């Protein structure tokens, strides 16, 4: 019972128990979300630190800051940390965990103990990878291609691959939990068609996590077996086939990029609807496009292998399908524009991140079309053009969605408001810094600047300098929220249950919510985005 007296703070999930061990053994989905938040922030800044060193090295054409072997480890560890230990879990593990039961009107996820286990497994994987870094690092690229990774590299491949192997289980279990939760724990009246779009995106993401992750599990497992026992799955001298690994790897890693972006798209729908006070334009299309992306995403992995030596006919099929996976993303972008149309747009920090997401995701997505085009990909594959493409989507898209989600739900999760001025300033700094870092990379990629080079031909220097300058600005943009968000925990004004006027179920709870979310399950009688409508003609 939340007994509210004049001098007692109501019981919520934070103050229910202040002991350290109550957090580490909690099965409350909200506490687990905060545990993930802390872990992920740590891994993000580790990965970011490696990026900083890389961009410093790349200011000059010569390899004069670090040894080549060190640079190779830097880009490998940057990729591994950012992809597996930040992007893949990010929004689902933090915001999915916190919000899914709330948005469904449930008291927790379907398997709370499994949820806690997922966090521990995740960090076990992270620990193994960190150990590999501390011992000297791994230098195979996050893609682990054999024969280099299985035969040639003398770095800590097994440890790093082992860390990712273990982390994969965490991904599968979280996905499993969310699927069962969404099917089984919806409040009375909450039909599928009344689900918030964020829930739809989490559902599609979870399907991919469950069905795609095992492919990388077996792929990395085989690399491990090959390294330890010197057998020949991927070694042509022993009758094996290195391309088999590429198929296994990309069968996971292409859907994995949709695991990374779909939750961001779900967040985007929540940010725009709430901060423009508009129903989403084409709810069914947005929900359906998430599922379409999940399904089509499984069919296009060969577009990473157009010059690998695979059959040209296979390449044709993959190219054709890759164009079609772009169409649902286009549907989403136009639907978001339609959601802004005739809205009442407030330029809050979440909205600013949301607007930035539309622009940058559009650019990143459209450059994906260059890569799907066969003859063009022959030229730009393995160049900075690809690097720019995926950073536009992952950083310009996904990380901005993550920061937008952070600011949007910060009041709900912490009960505090962050300083809005600093929020807006940081969003702007991130936007400017991001574009300066990554736009020049498109140009130099087409000029022929290859990936994973720590020393390069002098004619590319001007682009690298611009990129590194942008990176330093971007870094500031990421550090600022770390400070003002933590500051707000003590000094920020207290937030009410619904500071933004949102309509989904989480806003009907106090901020922060009580441990058991709802006393009685709410009964849902209407669509989730029932904003009042302004009279026509305004």
């Amino acid at each position: 019972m939340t007994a509210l007296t004049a001098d007692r703070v109501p019981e919520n999930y934070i103050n229910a128990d202040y002991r350290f061990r109550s957090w580490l053994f909690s099965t409350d989905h909200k506490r687990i979300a905060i545990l993930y938040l802390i872990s992920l922030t740590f891994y993000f800044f580790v990965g970011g630190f490696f990026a900083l060193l890389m961009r410093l090295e790349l200011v000059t054409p010569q390899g004069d800051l670090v040894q080549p072997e060190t640079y190779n480890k830097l880009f490998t560890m940057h990729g591994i940390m950012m992809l597996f230990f930040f992007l893949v879990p990010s929004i689902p593990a933090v915001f999915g965990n916190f919000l899914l039961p709330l948005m469904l009107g449930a008291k927790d996820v379907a398997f709370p103990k499994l949820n806690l286990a997922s966090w521990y497994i995740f960090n076990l994987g992270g620990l193994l990878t960190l150990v590999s870094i501390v011992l000297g690092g791994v230098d195979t690229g996050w893609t682990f291609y054999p024969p280099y990774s299985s035969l040639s590299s003398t770095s800590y491949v097994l440890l790093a691959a082992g860390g990712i192997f273990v982390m994969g289980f965490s991904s599968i279990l979280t996905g499993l939990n969310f699927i069962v939760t969404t099917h089984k724990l919806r409040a009375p009246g909450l039909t599928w068609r009344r689900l918030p779009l964020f829930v739809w995106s989490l559902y599609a993401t979870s399907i991919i996590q469950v069905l795609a992750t095992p492919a990388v599990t077996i792929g990395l497992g085989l690399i491990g077996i090959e390294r330890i026992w010197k057998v020949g799955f991927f070694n042509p001298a022993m009758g094996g086939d290195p391309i088999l690994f590429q198929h296994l790897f990309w069968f996971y890693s292409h859907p994995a990029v949709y695991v990374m972006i779909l939750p961001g798209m779900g967040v985007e729908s929540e940010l725009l609807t709430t901060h423009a006070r508009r129903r989403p334009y084409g709810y069914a299309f947005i929900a359906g496009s998430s599922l379409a992306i999940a399904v089509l995403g499984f069919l296009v992995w060969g577009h990473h292998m157009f010059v690998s030596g695979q059959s040209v006919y296979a390449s044709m099929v993959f190219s054709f399908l890759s164009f079609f996976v772009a169409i649902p993303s286009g549907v989403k972008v136009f639907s978001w524009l339609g959601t802004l149309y005739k809205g009442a747009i407030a330029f809050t920090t979440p909205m600013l991140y949301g607007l930035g997401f539309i622009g940058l995701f559009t650019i990143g997505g459209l450059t994906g079309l260059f890569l799907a085009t066969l003859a063009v990909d022959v030229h730009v594959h393995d160049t900075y053009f690809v690097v720019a493409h995926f950073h536009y989507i992952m950083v310009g898209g996904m990380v901005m969605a993550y920061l937008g989600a952070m600011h949007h739900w910060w009041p709900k999760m912490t009960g505090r408001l962050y300083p809005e001025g600093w929020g807006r300033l940081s969003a702007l700094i991130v936007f400017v810094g991001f574009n300066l870092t990554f736009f020049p990379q498109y140009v130099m990629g087409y000029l022929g600047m290859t990936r994973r080079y720590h020393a390069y031909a002098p004619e590319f220097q001007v682009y690298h300098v611009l990129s590194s300058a942008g990176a330093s600005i971007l870094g500031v943009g990421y550090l600022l929220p770390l400070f003002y968000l933590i500051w707000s925990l003590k000094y920020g004004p207290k937030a009410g249950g619904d500071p933004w006027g949102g309509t989904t179920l989480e806003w009907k709870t106090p901020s922060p919510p009580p441990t058991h979310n709802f006393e009685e399950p709410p009964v849902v009688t209407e669509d989730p985005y029932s904003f009042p409508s302004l009279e026509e003609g305004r």
Partner: protein
Amino acid sequence: MRSSAPALAEQFDSFEHQRESSVLGMWVFLGAEMIFFGGAILGFVEFRHAYVADFNAASNHTKIVLGTVNTAVLLTSSLFMALAVHAAQEGKNRRLLGFLAATMLLGTAFLAVKFAEYYLEVVEGLVPGPRFRMDGADSRHAQLFFVCYFTMTGVHALHLIIGIALLGFLGLRTLGGKVTPQNHNVVEVGGLYWHFVDIVWIFLFPLLYLLGRHAGHG
């Protein structure tokens, strides 16, 4: 036995709700496992297609009699597992424990036979590496067959060991009074997992032991 009665977790409305959710969860997990084994099988099929003659020759060196015995053992264990689930549904816990024990015993028997096969294969020089020897086929490709064989059956055996441990855990829960007709989902979920491990073997056995085997060999 009220203090050790099975608990209904707060996020569920009823025991039936809890049961359905657990079962759905296990099905989802098995979907992931299918992809995992599928990847290994895909690799095997690809190599077999490339080196048909050598893989056929190598496959003749697997122990068909022991493999067939094991198939029967595992199928029978699945029968006992199904009977265990049925007993749990009816609240007949003593029978449930008996059937669980029988399943675990057969599973262990499978492992024993499997390790016997491995021992024979070591002795015959079929372990890939410097001590490999086999006449009549390209040694590299034959070794590749055995790499696939040891990997696939090894991973399967690992899953079986986990399954036996899981069933042991179920047995302990039953003894602790936590399994009732209303709340026996752990048994049902354990059953699903056990049947899956059985089905994987049903795929591995023909692929590794039967395909390309010449009559009269073994």
